């Protein structure tokens, strides 16, 4: 309130009317329609998805650009900053629950549905099926080799954990005003993230071409690719966030006490890091 009285900042910044939300809504309408058309083999599908994606990109650039402009224009009071902290925390919580659905599915198939299909209950339906993990299930006849934990996945664990460390070093550089340190360690974090994604792409290729492990390889393939795939998508988003932060750093944004965007990206990065640790243990290791 004192800030408002001194005229420096409003008590709480309420933005002017904006056309970015409706732009985003149009994007999601086209994406939803297009995706439904696409998965049903209709020609318009990919075009609509492409259109929706382009509109979405325009919206993201425009909307985030506006927010960055307002932030750099120092329109955000400490109270606005606190709102962003609450908002980001609850967003990450929602992401945790999204992954919880898939981890829950993994738990269920490993501990309930697969053992049940191999139990006496199901002998009449599936007389030859022996329950175990990994499995393609009682009906599918293909065989595959499961993904080992100690090769690339272990390497990727080390890479992501290291990236969490380098990001913290970058943050220390930011808070202590050493912008050179910030830039170098932030760049290093992004490169580690990119390396992780490169390894994961290689791992997927290896799975499809040599292990015969596919998305359609029973519940093992389903849970493996959906969990690691969504995680990879989140690493990609996190890496994009960090790249934006690097770009903003180069442009001279952020001060030691005004850089929540950086912290939000860092929180997100640590979140995908923790999800990976769970993945490494529950998907790769405990087979």
């Amino acid at each position, binding site marked *: 309130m004192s800030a408002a009285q001194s005229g420096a900042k409003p*008590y709480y910044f309420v933005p002017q*009317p904006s056309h970015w939300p409706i732009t985003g*809504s149009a994007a999601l309408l086209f994406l939803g329609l297009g995706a439904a058309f696409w998965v049903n083999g209709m020609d318009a599908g990919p075009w609509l998805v492409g259109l929706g994606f382009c509109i979405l990109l325009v919206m993201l650039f425009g909307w985030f650009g506006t927010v960055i402009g307002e932030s750099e224009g120092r329109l955000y009071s400490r109270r606005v900053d606190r*709102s962003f902290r609450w908002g980001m925390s*609850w967003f990450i919580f*929602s992401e945790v629950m999204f992954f919880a659905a898939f981890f*829950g599915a993994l738990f269920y198939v490993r501990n309930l549905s697969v053992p049940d299909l191999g139990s006496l209950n199901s002998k009449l339906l599936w007389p030859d099926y022996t329950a175990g993990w990994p499995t393609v299930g009682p009906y*599918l006849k293909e065989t595959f080799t499961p993904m080992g934990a100690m090769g690339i996945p272990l390497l990727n664990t080390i890479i992501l954990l290291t990236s969490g460390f380098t990001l913290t070093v970058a943050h220390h550089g930011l808070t202590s005003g050493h912008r050179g340190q910030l830039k170098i360690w932030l760049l290093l974090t992004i490169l580690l993230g990119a390396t992780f994604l490169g390894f994961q792409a290689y791992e997927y290729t290896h799975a499809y071409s040599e292990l015969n492990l596919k998305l359609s390889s029973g519940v093992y393939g*389903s849970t493996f690719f959906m969990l690691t795939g969504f995680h990879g998508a989140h690493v990609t988003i996190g890496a994009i966030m960090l790249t934006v932060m690097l770009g903003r750093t180069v442009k001279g944004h952020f001060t030691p006490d005004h850089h929540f965007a950086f912290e939000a990206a860092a929180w997100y990065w640590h979140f995908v890091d923790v999800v990976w640790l769970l993945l490494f243990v529950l998907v790769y290791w405990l087979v």
Partner: protein
Amino acid sequence: MSSIPHDHATGHAEEPPHAHDDHAHGPHGGIMRWVTTTNHKDIGTLYLCFSLIMFFVGGIMALTIRAELFEPGLQIVHPEFFNSMTTLHGLIMIFGAIMPAAVGFANWMIPMLIGAPDMAFARMNNWSFWLLPPAVILLGVSFFVPGGAAAGGWTLYPPLSTQAGMGMDLTIFAIHIMGASSIMGSINIITTILNLRAPGMTLMKMPLFCWTWLITAYLLVAVMPVLAGAVTMLLTDRHFGTTFFNAAGGGDPVLFQHVFWFFGHPEVYILILPAFGIISSIIPTFARKPLFGYASMVYAVAGIAILSFIVWAHHMFTVGMPAAGLLFFMYATMLIAVPTGVKVFNWLATMWKGEMTFEAPMLFAIGFLFLFTLGGFTGLVLAITPVDIQLQDTYYVVAHFHYVMVAGSLFAFFGGTYYWIPKWTGTMYDERLGKLHFWGSMIFFNITFFPMHFLGLAGMPRRIPDYAQQFADWNMVASIGALGFGLSQLIFLYAVIKCIRGDGAKAPAKPWDGGDTLEWTLPSPPPYHTFETPPVIR
């Protein structure tokens, strides 16, 4: 709302700096005002109007169902279309009518109740609303694609949903978009309540409506992503060869039911808790007494929310579960009666020896109290595992959840509308129309849904367009009641439109003697921006 005054409620001297000074004071004109608005009152109005439209769309679907069930035999619609009607009626009423109505109340009232200048994320607030029309467009398009709209029930159980046509894909993406809308709306509400309360407005001084929404929003953030995960697995099972819900690959259709109801049970509390908050605002006002047992009300809502996460499998007693699971979920479900009972008795105690008057909001609150409690009791009946095994998927279940959803949530929203519409529009509603609407709704609601208990106990299954002769009488009664209930809602529409057009007595700042919350300190209608500097609460 013919004109919006531009003066400020609180007279602070300086204008906040704005990026575009030419728009600094007010909204855009015309349609663009509503498309681009960042004002919580505008967005609240959008939500409420959208939900009213969807209420009538879903209502027409319900009347289609009741028309088909008027007599035994197939007469009006194809069975496939009937199935689409039951499915879309559920989805539209839940995601299009009740939830947006609750969010509309939250948008209008929470900033005014806690002394905040607006919602914490005003632009995102706009997006939360404007994601709903695309989602509804997807659902609408699904009627015109090969195979028609989703027809497996709003619960989207596989294997029906994995085998259905393209309408299911559109439904899945519609749910993704509505989920994104809900999550953003909820984060907004949580942040507003936690960060934008006026000085002195401690959490335990907040009007109960804010508490119920805080907890509802927490539930939404926790379970909406789980629903997104469930329908994503459905999508990949349908098109990308995964076997989450297919035993051939080691999966299980029952897995979907677990994931779905992990979302679905908290979801039903998401639908009712804001209604509790509205009732907790109305009853003290018209009993002219403070709410009895405020703290215990807060703890009861929190208790209901926590319990809602550990009762989901009572929706699945017939799918096969170990006896220990059946017992656990039965007892956990019954436990919910404890905090709910706390709330009901507190409402009664608030009325005890109060100087009560019975205007439309209070009538709906008392109607709520009777009928919601009745729906709660049939819920307890259904919680008993051996009974539920008999009643699963019968009309008894339909009767139960319409008692809590229609006579519960919907009645509370009607009451809340009559309670706050003088504030929103500056015009008093027509009391005679309000009372007529109440009695029409109350009587026809019971004519529609009370016989469904008998039908269910006699064994009539839900979601079937035809039935045996023995069910004919009560079905005819229910269908007549449904028509009456539908017509009664036109009174509501007329009463609301009258207020919006300013056709009625001018509302004072505080139309109800008993109202002691912050919104009544503002003029009716309130200025476009309120509490730009926060009031101080003693």
